[in-house]
């Protein structure tokens, strides 16, 4: 099996020139001061990032602020606010002022965004409530299996997440395992699929480990003598948790919230499978703008809004963890 690796000639030329420039720079610096300047080692990466991260983001910005002909416009953002913006414009053009009566604001985009944020918020809260105790118990010094338990949390992530999500279908379907079991017990079947709860379940299922790891990392690095000291100073175990452990684990919590909230807002596979198209989230919206409608301009505007929202929420979260020592997945 072979795949086409062909690129336009200028792409090869560019890459060749970049590589040649890098080698030349190193050669010159070896010549000149008998040692390679270490910071030059980051040059290929810098070039790569500019080409594949910075330029693409600039492209999104470009499309967000231009119309189909390439002229500057803010219509794409108006379109976000009012999804009927284009058709309303046509109505007004054709009917003049009389058309005003037929105009309504389309709220699909804003509603979808609000719904996504709400779902992501719920998912984050549930993950935190489920995950914090799990991380706490795992970090318990009396729990000898702590580090092996972490591996148990990682292993499921090796399985393709789409397949795992689809597997939930077999459990939740009308003819699925849970309903079959209920019927066998003599109850009526329940509609479990194709609603918000199912989507939420799928999200919690997929993102829970991302909440557990950072909290566990922080808790397991915490000096256990601190809680002994708290006990020594008269805290009972509940007070110790509340007054010592909890505040000290904030960095982990912050990083957990970031790692759950961000993918939750933008997920577009889970609602499609478990929501069955009845629920649309912001990720679906963006995807359909690009791939179904082919409207890059509005799609880019939506992406930009999403990026902005995430950057704002991240900077708020950073305030709670100024040293950024929450520890990630690594």
């Amino acid at each position, binding site marked *: 099996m072979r795949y086409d690796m062909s690129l336009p000639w200028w*792409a090869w030329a560019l890459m060749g020139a970049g590589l040649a420039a890098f080698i030349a720079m190193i050669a010159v610096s070896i010549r000149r001061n008998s040692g390679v300047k270490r910071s030059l080692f980051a040059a290929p990466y810098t070039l790569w990032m500019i080409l594949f991260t910075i330029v693409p983001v600039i492209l999104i910005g470009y499309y967000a602020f231009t119309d189909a002909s390439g002229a500057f416009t803010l219509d794409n953002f108006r379109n976000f606010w009012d999804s009927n913006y284009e058709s309303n414009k046509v109505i007004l053009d054709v009917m003049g002022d009389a058309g005003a009566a037929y105009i309504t604001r389309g709220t699909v985009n804003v509603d979808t965004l609000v719904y996504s944020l709400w779902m992501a918020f719920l998912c984050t809260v549930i993950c935190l409530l489920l995950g914090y105790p799990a991380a706490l118990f795992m970090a318990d010094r009396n729990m000898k299996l702590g580090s092996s338990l972490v591996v148990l949390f990682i292993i499921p992530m090796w399985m393709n997440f789409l397949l795992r999500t689809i597997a939930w279908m*077999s459990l939740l379907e009308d003819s699925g395992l849970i309903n079959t079991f209920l019927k066998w017990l003599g109850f009526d079947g329940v509609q479990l699929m194709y609603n918000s709860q199912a989507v939420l379940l799928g999200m919690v299922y997929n993102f829970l480990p991302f909440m557990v790891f950072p909290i566990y990392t922080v808790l397991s690095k915490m000096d256990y003598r601190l809680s002994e000291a708290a006990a020594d100073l008269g805290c009972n175990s509940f007070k110790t948790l509340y007054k010592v452990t909890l505040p000290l684990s904030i960095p982990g919590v912050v990083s957990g919230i970031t790692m759950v909230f961000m993918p939750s807002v933008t997920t577009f596979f889970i609602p499609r499978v478990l929501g069955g198209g009845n629920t649309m989230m912001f990720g679906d919206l963006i995807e359909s703008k690009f791939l179904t409608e082919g409207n890059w301009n509005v799609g880019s505007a939506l992406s930009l809004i999403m990026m902005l929202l995430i950057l704002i929420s991240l900077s708020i979260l950073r305030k709670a963890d100024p040293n950024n020592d929450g520890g990630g997945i690594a």
Partner: protein
Amino acid sequence: MIKFLKRFYLGIVLVFLYVPILVLIVQSFNAGKSRAKWEGFSLRWYVELFQDERILNALYVTLSIAVLAMIVSTILGTLAAIGIHAMRKRPQALMMTLTNLPNTMPDIVTGISLMLLFIFTKVDRGYLTMLLAHITFDVPYVILSVLPKLKQMNKHCYEAALDLGATPMYALFHVTIPQCKQGIITGAMLAFTLSLDDFTISYFTTSPLVQNLSTLIYSSARKGIDPSLNALSALMFVALLILLLIVNRRTASAD
């Protein structure tokens, strides 16, 4: 009693995480195609798996891209980490922002922005573009796992090597890199698994003609998943499990 409750709670959470996987594995042995009805034990799907051109193709794409992306991003990322480590404060902070940027960008935006880049530059999307995209999201993770090791290193070690007659290049390969070996390995593993598991970014940067497992599963999700895919993931799951056990054994005996 409290200890039991704690274990019970952890047990419940783990059951929640493993139930779908169990379902999936059981289904792969089901003789029928139905998701819910058990029609008897069979290895039918495992046999069909090895005859299904599409699945094997997707597997090849997934694995080869994961390996290539791992190799390129590990080299690029390790070099970059060494470079960033040697920088002065200002440019270092700038580079770290650049490195953290993809982490703060939602996958879907990364995928779409790369798609726009490829369409804009008239590069046909396919195998190569997917590979480029995977390298792009892998590199920051490599940097973030190598950099702490460099920071932990006694900074005089490198000087000591020069002092003992090593050229900067020799010192790099015989002192610096061996000491961050652990970070490099972690970074490479991370890159490999991230690439293996990626769906969103692949989805936007490839064409329907070149599919990896994730995009294949996605495109067939509505019609119902071919149980052969379940069989394949069960096999991969077991393979990874065995790999993990071997690694664990080796690190345990190394200690």
